[in-house]
């Protein structure tokens, strides 16, 4: 188990480095697909089957397809490669190191996510609790969720319970935000009507499809825009 997880982590690191150092942009994107897939396998090894499937569907199957799509179409071969002396690069590396250190320290000291945590308790802060469980002595602690309970239901029920009972309001608000973003994106990309002069109030008058088949080339661009946003959800 430990060996397998170790091997997976090494593979993730290699493919993640591939994202940065790949000679062509398309290989960078494909490396990212591999990284996302390997992360999904890590979820599977940790017995989170639901997250495994969702990770593959959402990230590998929807988000990254569009990345690859756009990269293959735009062919950004002429893009300037970053120099090692670029101050932004130094800042970026420092930021990454800082985030990694913070996550590592948090994990080793057992910062857990506990739903039974009430806000009155001193050690509690919005459900995050420092202390018991996790840490170096118990690295595979499952925090607020007992392993047996989570796995008996195949995690779907557990995740659903958290999303639709405990955190239903934040969840719905988030989905509303995404919807607003989706509608906004559609509005921004659609053409404004010049005939009426009422920017986007009406669709450009279009002849009947049977009369003018060439017109059809426009339609997929409009409808094809939608998976960009909804697919990411």
């Amino acid at each position, binding site marked *: *188990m430990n*060996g*397998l997880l170790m091997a997976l982590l090494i593979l993730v690191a290699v493919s993640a480095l591939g994202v940065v150092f790949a000679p062509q942009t*398309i290989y960078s994107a*494909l490396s990212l*697909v591999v990284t996302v*897939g390997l992360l*999904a396998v890590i979820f*599977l*090894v*940790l*017995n989170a*089957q*639901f997250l*495994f*499937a*969702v990770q*593959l*569907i959402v990230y*590998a*199957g*929807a988000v990254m*397809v*569009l990345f*690859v*799509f756009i990269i*293959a*179409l735009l062919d950004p071969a002429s893009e300037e490669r970053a120099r090692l002396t670029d101050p932004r690069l130094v800042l970026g590396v420092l930021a990454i190191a800082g985030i990694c250190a913070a996550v590592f320290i948090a994990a080793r000291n057992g910062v857990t996510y506990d739903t039974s945590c009430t806000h009155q308790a001193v050690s509690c802060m919005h459900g995050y609790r420092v202390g018991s469980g996790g840490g170096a002595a118990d690295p595979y602690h499952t925090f607020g969720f007992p392993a047996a309970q989570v796995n008996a*239901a*195949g*995690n*779907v029920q557990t995740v659903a319970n958290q999303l639709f009972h405990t955190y239903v309001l934040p969840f719905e608000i988030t989905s509303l935000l995404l919807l607003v973003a989706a509608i906004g994106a559609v509005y921004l990309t659609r053409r404004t009507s010049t005939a009426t002069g009422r920017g986007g109030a009406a669709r450009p008058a279009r002849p009947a*499809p049977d009369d003018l*088949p060439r017109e*059809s080339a*426009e*339609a*997929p661009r409009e*409808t*094809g825009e*939608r*998976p960009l946003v*909804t*697919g990411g959800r």
Partner: protein
Amino acid sequence: MIASWYGYFIGPDLWWAVLIKAALIALILATAFAYLTLAERKVSARIQLRYGPNRVGPFGLLQPLADGIKLFFKENTAPGGRDRLLYLVAPALAGTAAILAFAAIPVAGVNCLGGPAVGQTGLSCPSGYALHWDIAHINVGLLYILAITSIGVYSLFLGGWSANSKYSLLGGLRSSAQVISYEMAVAFALIGPVILAGSLNLEHVVTTQQHLWYLFLQPLAFVLYFVAALAETNRAPFDLPEAETELVAGYHTEYSSMRFGMFFMGEYINMVTVAAIATTLFLGGWLSPFPTSWFIFGYIPGALWFVLKVVVLLFVMMWVRWTLPRLRYDRLMSLGWKVLLPLGLLNIMVTGTIVALRAA
């Protein structure tokens, strides 16, 4: 040690049993692919009042073998400006993704070897070895299948892009847009039966259909799924990615010999997978359509019913392909986004409301 880690992938099962099942399924699917090409030619021939292949072997039954030999020994021509690695990987990915998806589909009910089955549907087997007839017995089987099929898009798109040809690229673009769009419709259509079954475990979904198939409880979802799934397999009337009249052959224009065969294989095995999912979720999977107390129906193995239902669905798919003309691209997109998707949402709402009211 070994017992502990593979358990995370395939559930608590004997590793050699899983290996045998995997090899068996791969073999059966490869054979199914070969004979599906023959079946397609025969069905299309009958629909067009022709005979179809009838020279190689009796009734042309050895035709797939001849085709296979031809594909393997053909010269492998490749375009000059191709991306060598991706050009090689794409067809392999097509076949792999198609076969992988089959891992979670239960072909028959659980057999308890050396112990009695517990529960009215025989789902658990406390004493003795529970022989599951799917390879990876995972709880989120349906989501797993959706995940794997969503990976299959890469083969089409990369195949089209890496060949460095305009027809291939256009075909690849169309196919990815189409598959991504219809994936939503497929997922929404499948939620209906999942709500009724209360589980994503496909074995469980089948056993809850003992009294009534979900085809009758979810007719709208079945139609939505079937239409969207046809589009996902890129078959006529949704075969825009390889529309001969516009794109020569679409994403596999620049492929030849067995590499072309791999794309072909991916498409046909995807057909089998789609039919198998429809069988599992709507047609009662391995369950007999007649009461098992009648005549000999108690003795017919479940796997046979499963195969029979899959074959019927495959025939319908071929029938559709050789009967209906191809859709125009914008119509395809508006069908997916403006018809199938809203109807799928409506179906989920109605089903969810009824289930919630009945539970209350």
